[in-house]
Structures are given as structure tokens and as C-alpha cells.
């Protein structure tokens, strides 16, 4: 009967493993920013995510050429542009050269009658023309006279000025010898736009690599010249690479360390291999469950996998060491079941998080741990040899017992540590929490500095305020943009906003273009009206024949399409505002504050709503990111507390309140002391530290449980076995989390360091408090 059951379990296990491997082989692994974005975003948060993924921001690469001298940098900049200009990986390659500038100027000048918002039928009547030409002459008498003079013969009504007007106040990159240079003149700067969106990190990575290689192979390049790049794509590719290499390193190192530890304890290859079965099973099922539950697995989740190795291996350690005698005491399984349940409760709290990184971790850990525990319970005993040839742990056991006895006598130290911890926390309480989302970002301070510098060089303002909406097709999108622009213009006049951009400035809707074309009079009529208009003005109609010819050309020219902007800087700007998605168009209109830093968004929203433009969402990106992070933190506080509470309840229910208190006190002390240690090291706590603390409670409770449950054990020898298994298990946990703590990916290192410190403290405190000294046992 027992054998048949075991065979059934073995069959089930094999099927599960096979299924998991199949699922994993179909799994998409990602390492982008999605781990930090909310699972069920609000409309405004969705905008933020769209912005990061589809938005033009995700496709822009800021490039700097440093070193050598100015002439060489200029030469390299031009060469790089010529090499990359026709590469399909890039939709735009610019360094401010005269050619691109001319292309833009030509687009605006040649199409001025379709682009100028001032073009109306009234403007092209005789009085309208008179007024418009007088306006241009007035502008000519002013400070911009030199520029206006150039356009007068062909554009006497000043349409070009009206178009340029929309771009007033834009900061432009500095230029030297006709190409863009940094503010300090020490680097040449370029702007690239990638063809692929932020959704395709692989393609972006390949394009960035191509830029590097193209630069490296530029003919006659000075050896001391170098290329620097930044931008959202560069940062996400870099952080993906870091995460990938870290995950590999952690997995290999973690496995090696645990294997070494087990070999040291077991001194037996078969036992080692058996001990790894629950670990591998747990990892496979964990990854497969996340894949099934989320549709993809984030690289960070795999990074956490290392810690599962440390956790899952504990079960086989308990089994092998505590049961070396070959007995099968039921209380052993009971204690272990309780341990698994408390850990699972802790991780279940994570699963409720709206922070996808954490909920993946929760699901991964729960399914992994449960699998590992079940495999240990139902598969391992059947595979274990009847008599375990475990090395004799008698002598280290006795030594350990002495140490633990000593610790128990040093119980007062716990009170001292607790007092010290409270003192540290009281003194430092102001800045214990970090509220910055970028505290979690994997990019280095140097990369962030470069990013800020290049952005400054290229005159890119930090886009903070955005009005946005989506529309089913391009024409609807542009028409909505035109309606929105009317409202924003009003707000701009009232000084509620300082300025804005809208895609229709660069590409008006077909309807608007047609209306503008229809405003232009036919040639004979145009000339008659012009002669009338020029009466009393210092200008003759004959001097304006270019104007009449242009007017006629505009009246019959083909309407502007998106392709009309190809190759111009304006097309990059348009792409950043009018974004094509799978089945819709996303429109983003950047808003600038009037003065100071902020915009009263409620007024903007009210004005839009008054014009039936409620579908336009206005957001403050800074506020949204801070809000997301704040909500994560609040939520993390809540579920950590609930998780801890659930664990306590579980303990109370299963072993009575006295026992629960005896288990809780060392755990509480461990948590407080861990926080104090982190704080004293000058580390600001983030949501991930909080999660780490929850795991300290979840994992630490196992130690305390086994210590506290000892009175149910029989002999001193058995007690020693339990203690030694606890220490080995603890070492495995501390090692694997400590390894995680050494990672250069903040998310991994925060959790790792917290749990490593906390788990060690939990064991020591549990030994002091929960352990019942042999002499205290009434026997």
C-alpha cells in the first residue's frame, strides 16, 4: 500500500516536472521597466506607462562625442550621421547640420499656407491682406527686422512668422561650425531616433550596438575620441544587461555555495543530489507558475530564485539531519508543516501587491516552497536509503550545544540590542524612508549624470506636464488635437500655462488643410485684392509676384501627409506627440509651466471639460511616479503588517499563545535590530527592505518553531541533531540572501541584505529566547 502510494506520488511528481519544463520552454522572459509599473494602472498611470514604452521618449538616444579636438569631433559627428542616416534601424539621425535645418525651414516655408493657424478666408480679402502686410512691415521695423525682411517678398502676410510663433521659447542646442555641441563646447552632440519602440528591447539593444560599432570603425578616428550615449532606451538596455548577467552570476554562485555547504555537512554525494531534488523541483514549478499566472517572467523574479535555493534546501536539511536515526516522528512533520505555512503566509501577502515585481516574487516563492516541501515529504523519504550514512555530527553537535547554552545565558544581550535599536531609530526617524522611485533603478550615478548633461546639451526640457488622449485613427487624433489646442491657447493667454505643443502645428488634419486651401483666392482675384490692399503702403504689387505664385501653388498643392516631414527634425517632434499603436493613436501634448515650476492642473482640466474634451487626460508625470511609489510603500506597509499578523495568528492557533509569544519576541527583536542596523549604515528604507523584513518573519519563525518545539523531543542527542540542522539551514539561507545582497541590482541587493542580516539575528535571538535550556526542562 505504502509503496503504491509512493509510486503514485513519484508519477505525479514526474508529470509536474515535465509540465513545468514544457511551460518554461514557452515562457517569455523580460527585464524591462515593467516590473516597476502597477499591475492594474489607473488611466493616468497608464499614460505614464505608455509614455515609457511606446512614447517617443523610449526611442530617443542622446549621443555625445568626447575627446580629441573640436574639429575632429565635428568631423566624426558628420561622418556618423552620414553612416547612420540610411540605416533602417534609425528613423532620424541629427546633429544640427545645415542640411536638416534647411529641410525643416523648407517644410515650414513651402507649406506655410496649409500650416499657418492664421489662414482664414477673411485674411485673404483686401482689408485682411492690408492688415496682415502692415503687421509684417511693423515686425520688420522691430528687433527681428533682419529676419522678417528675408521673407517679405514671398510671404508678405507673415504666415511663416505665425508658424514660428508656436515654437517661440524653445531652447535649442548650442552649435559651433554648424553642428550641435554641448553647452561647454567640450562634446559634439547628436540625436538619434530608433525605429523600434521600447517594447522591443532586443531590437533597441542591437541598434545601440550598431551605433557603437559604427563609431568605432569611423575612418581615421582619433584614438582618444569616445562615444557616450544616454536616453531611456540606453538605460533600459543597460539595466536589462545588468539584470541578466546578475541573474546568471547569482544562480551559479548560489548553487555552488549551497552545494559546498551541503557537501561539508553530509560528506555524501547521493545525499547531496537527493537534497537538491526539492530545490530544483521548487524552482521549476515556481517559474512555470509565474509564467502561467503573468504571461511572462521578469528577470528580477529569477534573481530572487537564488533565495529559494537557500529556503528550499532547508527542508531536506531538516529531514536528513533530524531523521538520521531513521525514525519518523510525527511531530517533526508537524513542525515542518507549520514552518512551511508561516513562510507561505508571508509570501502570500506579497502576492496581493500591485507592484508586479513583488507579486511575481510572491507567486514564485509560494509555489516553489510548497513544491519543495511536498517533494521533501512525499518523494524524498521513498528515495532515501533505509539507513542514512550521515557523517557523525556528534562532536560538532556537542560544541554547538555549548555555544547555544552560552547564548541562552546571554539572554540579557537581547534586551541591550533592543534598546540600542530603539535608540538608533528614535534618533534617525526623520529620514528612514526613501520616497524616490529611482532608488530602485539599476542605473549608476555616473549614467544619471551623463543623462542629465546630454539632455541639457540638447535643450530637451524635462517633460513633466502632459495632456494626452487616444483616438481610433490619425485624422480623428489630429482633429481632437486641434480642438484641444484651441483650449490650451486660451489657457496660455490667461497665463495658466506657459506654452504647449500639439501635433497639428506640424501636421494639421486633412479637414483643416482643406479649409485653409479653400481660404486662398484664385490667381486673378488674388492679384486684384492685393493691389487694393497695397494702396497707401510703401510696397508695389509687382514686387510681390513671388507671393501670388506661391499662393496659387498652395491652393492646388497636394495635402500634407505624415511622410511629407520625412528626414526633418520636425518629424521627430511629431513622432513624440502622435504615436501610432496597434489599434489606435496616442496623442501627447507637452505643457510648459507659465512661471515657476508648477501648473494648476485643475484649471486645465476644468477648461478642457468645459469644451467637451473630458477624454483628454492631464497629468503631472513627477506627481504620478511619486504617487505610484507612495502607494507601493503604503501597500507594502499594510501587507507586511497583515502578513506578520497572519503568521502570529497561525502560530497562536497551532501551538498556543505561550509558545507564540516565545516565538514572536525574538522575531520582533530581529526585525527591529535589522532596521536599526540598516539605518545606522545610512541606508534609507524602500519598499523592498520592507518586503525583506516580512521574509525575516516568515523564515525566522521556522527557527524559533524548531527551538521552541524541542520539549517534545526525547533525548539530548536528538535535540543536538535539531539544533545542528537549524544552524546549517540558517547558514544556507544567510549565504544565499547574503549573495543577493552583494548584487549590483538595487532591487535584489535590498531584499538580500535585509534578509541575510535579519535571518542571522532571528536564529541568534531564537536561540536566546525560544530555546528552552536543557536544565530548564522538567524531566
Amino acid at each position, binding site marked *: 500500500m505504502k509503496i503504491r502510494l509512493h509510486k503514485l506520488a513519484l508519477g505525479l511528481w514526474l508529470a509536474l516536472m515535465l509540465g513545468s519544463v514544457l511551460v518554461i520552454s514557452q515562457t517569455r522572459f523580460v527585464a524591462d521597466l515593467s516590473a516597476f509599473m502597477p499591475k492594474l494602472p489607473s488611466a493616468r498611470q497608464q499614460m505614464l506607462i505608455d509614455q515609457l514604452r511606446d512614447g517617443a521618449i523610449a526611442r530617443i538616444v542622446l549621443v555625445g562625442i568626447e575627446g580629441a579636438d573640436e574639429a575632429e569631433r565635428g568631423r566624426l559627428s558628420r561622418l556618423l550621421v552620414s553612416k547612420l542616416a540610411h540605416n533602417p534601424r534609425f528613423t532620424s539621425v541629427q546633429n544640427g547640420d545645415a542640411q536638416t535645418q534647411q529641410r525643416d525651414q523648407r517644410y515650414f516655408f513651402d507649406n506655410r499656407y496649409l500650416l499657418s493657424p492664421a489662414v482664414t478666408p477673411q485674411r485673404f480679402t483686401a482689408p485682411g491682406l492690408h492688415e496682415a502686410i502692415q503687421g509684417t512691415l511693423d515686425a520688420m521695423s522691430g528687433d527681428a527686422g533682419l529676419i522678417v525682411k528675408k521673407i517679405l517678398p514671398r510671404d508678405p502676410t507673415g504666415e511663416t512668422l505665425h508658424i514660428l510663433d508656436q515654437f517661440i*521659447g524653445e531652447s535649442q542646442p548650442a552649435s559651433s561650425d554648424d553642428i550641435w555641441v554641448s553647452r561647454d563646447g567640450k562634446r559634439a552632440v547628436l540625436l538619434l531616433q530608433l525605429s523600434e519602440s521600447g517594447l522591443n528591447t532586443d531590437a533597441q539593444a542591437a541598434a545601440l550596438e550598431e551605433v557603437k560599432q559604427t563609431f568605432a570603425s569611423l575612418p581615421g578616428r582619433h584614438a582618444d575620441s569616445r562615444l557616450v550615449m544616454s536616453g531611456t532606451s540606453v538605460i533600459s538596455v543597460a539595466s536589462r544587461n545588468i539584470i541578466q548577467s546578475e541573474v546568471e552570476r547569482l544562480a551559479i554562485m548560489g548553487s555552488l555555495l549551497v552545494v559546498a555547504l551541503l557537501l561539508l555537512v553530509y560528506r555524501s554525494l547521493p545525499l547531496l543530489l537527493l537534497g537538491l531534488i526539492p530545490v530544483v523541483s521548487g524552482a521549476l514549478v515556481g517559474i512555470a507558475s509565474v509564467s502561467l499566472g503573468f504571461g511572462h517572467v521578469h528577470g528580477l523574479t529569477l534573481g530572487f530564485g537564488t533565495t529559494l535555493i537557500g529556503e528550499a534546501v532547508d527542508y531536506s536539511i531538516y529531514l536528513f539531519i533530524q531523521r538520521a536515526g531513521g525514525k519518523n516522528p510525527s511531530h517533526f512533520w508537524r513542525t515542518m508543516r507549520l514552518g512551511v505555512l508561516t513562510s507561505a503566509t508571508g509570501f502570500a501577502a506579497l502576492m496581493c501587491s500591485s507592484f508586479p515585481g513583488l507579486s511575481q516574487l510572491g507567486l514564485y516563492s509560494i509555489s516553489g516552497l510548497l513544491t519543495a516541501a511536498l517533494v521533501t515529504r512525499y518523494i524524498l523519504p521513498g528515495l532515501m536509503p533505509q539507513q542514512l550514512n550521515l557523517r557523525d555530527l556528534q562532536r560538532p553537535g556537542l560544541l554547538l550545544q555549548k555555544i547555544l547554552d552560552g547564548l541562552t545565558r546571554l539572554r540579557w544581550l537581547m534586551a541591550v540590542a533592543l534598546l540600542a535599536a530603539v535608540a538608533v531609530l528614535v534618533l534617525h526617524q526623520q529620514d528612514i524612508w526613501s520616497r524616490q522611485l529611482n532608488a530602485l533603478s539599476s542605473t549608476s550615478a555616473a549614467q544619471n549624470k551623463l543623462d542629465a548633461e546630454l539632455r541639457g546639451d540638447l535643450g530637451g526640457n524635462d517633460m513633466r506636464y502632459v495632456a494626452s488622449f487616444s483616438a481610433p485613427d490619425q485624422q480623428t487624433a489630429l482633429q481632437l488635437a486641434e480642438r484641444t489646442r484651441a483650449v490650451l491657447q486660451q489657457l496660455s493667454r490667461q497665463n495658466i500655462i506657459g506654452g504647449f505643443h500639439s501635433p497639428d502645428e506640424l501636421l494639421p488634419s486633412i479637414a483643416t488643410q482643406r479649409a485653409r486651401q479653400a481660404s486662398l483666392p484664385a490667381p486673378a482675384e488674388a492679384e486684384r485684392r492685393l493691389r487694393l490692399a497695397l494702396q497707401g503702403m510703401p*510696397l508695389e504689387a509687382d514686387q510681390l509676384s513671388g507671393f501670388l505664385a506661391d499662393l496659387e501653388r498652395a491652393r492646388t498643392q497636394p495635402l500634407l501627409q505624415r511622410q511629407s516631414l520625412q528626414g526633418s527634425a520636425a518629424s521627430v517632434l511629431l513622432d513624440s506627440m502622435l504615436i501610432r499603436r496597434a489599434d489606435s493613436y496616442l496623442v501627447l501634448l507637452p505643457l510648459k509651466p507659465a512661471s515657476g515650476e508648477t501648473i494648476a492642473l485643475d484649471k486645465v482640466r476644468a477648461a478642457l471639460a468645459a469644451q467637451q474634451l473630458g477624454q483628454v487626460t492631464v497629468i503631472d508625470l513627477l506627481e504620478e511616479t511619486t504617487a505610484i511609489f507612495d502607494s507601493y510603500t503604503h501597500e507594502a506597509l499594510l501587507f507586511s503588517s497583515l502578513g506578520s499578523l497572519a503568521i502570529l495568528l497561525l502560530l497562536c492557533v497551532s501551538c498556543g499563545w505561550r509558545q507564540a509569544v516565545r516565538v514572536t519576541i525574538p522575531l520582533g527583536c530581529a526585525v527591529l535590530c535589522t532596521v536599526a542596523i540598516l539605518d545606522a549604515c545610512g541606508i534609507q528604507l524602500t519598499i523592498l527592505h520592507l518586503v525583506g523584513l516580512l521574509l525575516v518573519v516568515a523564515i525566522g519563525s521556522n527557527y524559533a518553531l524548531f527551538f521552541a518545539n524541542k520539549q517534545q523531543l526525547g533525548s539530548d542527542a536528538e535535540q543536538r541533531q535539531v539544533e545542528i540542522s537549524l544552524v546549517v539551514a540558517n547558514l544556507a539561507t544567510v549565504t544565499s540572501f547574503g549573495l543577493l545582497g552583494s548584487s549590483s541590482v538595487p532591487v535584489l541587493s535590498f531584499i538580500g541584505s535585509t534578509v541575510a542580516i535579519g535571518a542571522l539575528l532571528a536564529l541568534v535571538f531564537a536561540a536566546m529566547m525560544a530555546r528552552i535550556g536543557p536544565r530548564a526542562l522538567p524531566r
Partner: protein
Amino acid sequence: MRVTIMSKTLGGLLLLLAASCSLAADWSLADLMQQLGQKKAGTATFVEKKYIAMLKQPLESSGELAFTAPDRLEKRTLKPKPEAVVLEGNKLTLERSDGRKMSVNLADRPEVSAFVESVRATLSGDRSALERYYSATLSGGSEQWQLNLTPLQPRMQKVISQIRIAGGHAQVRTIEFLQADGDRSEMTITSTSAK
């Protein structure tokens, strides 16, 4: 056309005048700069006429000027269209009648820099700033002097061929910009207060 001929004749006359004066005087650029540099602040009204080949009549504008040593200069046009240019340190701000402003950092725009320094460096008597962008020749005497500035940068030469500033003592009376295409502008300045 008439305008061009006139301006050429005028230019020739001025040139003759300048030549004859420079023979007579031992009045140097250093002296002029020193004299101009003593002024701390001043306000004035101006009338500017632009002679443009395409137009039958010159375009006229007028307004107020204010200068505060060492580097603040404000030109406020009142007619025909109110607008203002405020130059302060390295920042040039254009203010338009509708209240919109546009700022330019002079460090980023060498050609704009050259343009504004012709007036500002002259007013503040800053010879080194002036000679960074122009070769300067002085004629006349303390009572009535004329400073001719020829741009050094090829980029600037394409737009402006010469700037002529005339005055008496520490007072600038006219500033004339001769453009490379033959058009020119002439600003007449009447001091209203000076310190």
C-alpha cells in the same frame, strides 16, 4: 534705388569726414572708452529708421533706451508695435506685446553676442569686449567722434558690413548698421537723463 545711392554718398562723405578728423586729433580709442566707462546709468529716447531697398519709404520705429553699467541694456520700442529687448549679463530677453518672452543665452549664440556687444560694449566703454568681435577705428575728437566697427567673424560679415557709432563726449548720438545687402538702419538717440 535712390536710398542705396544716398546711403553710399552719405557713407562716402562720412568716410572723408572721418579721415580728415583723424588727422587732426590725438584723441584715441582708449580715451573714448575711458570717458564712456565713467557713465553709470542713463535713459534716452530713440528714433530708428530702416532703409530697405524693396520699400518706397523707410520704416520708422521709436521708443526708449535705458542703460545701467556695467551690462544692463533695455530697448523698449513703443511704436509702431510695442516690444522690448532686455540684455542683462549673458541673457538676452525679447518681450512681445502679448507678454510672451523668449530668452537667449549669449554664450550659445556667438553671432547674436557680436551684435549686442557693438552697442553694449561701446556704452560701457568695454574695449576688450568690443575688440573681440570687431576691428574698431576711431575718428574725430572728444567733442564729436565716430567709431567704425567692422565685424571679424565671417558669419557676421555676411549680415552686417559695418556699424558706425557717433557721439560727443560720453554721449552716443547715432548708431548706424550697414547691412551686407546694402540696406541700412539708423538710430538717433536723445539723452533724457544720465549719471
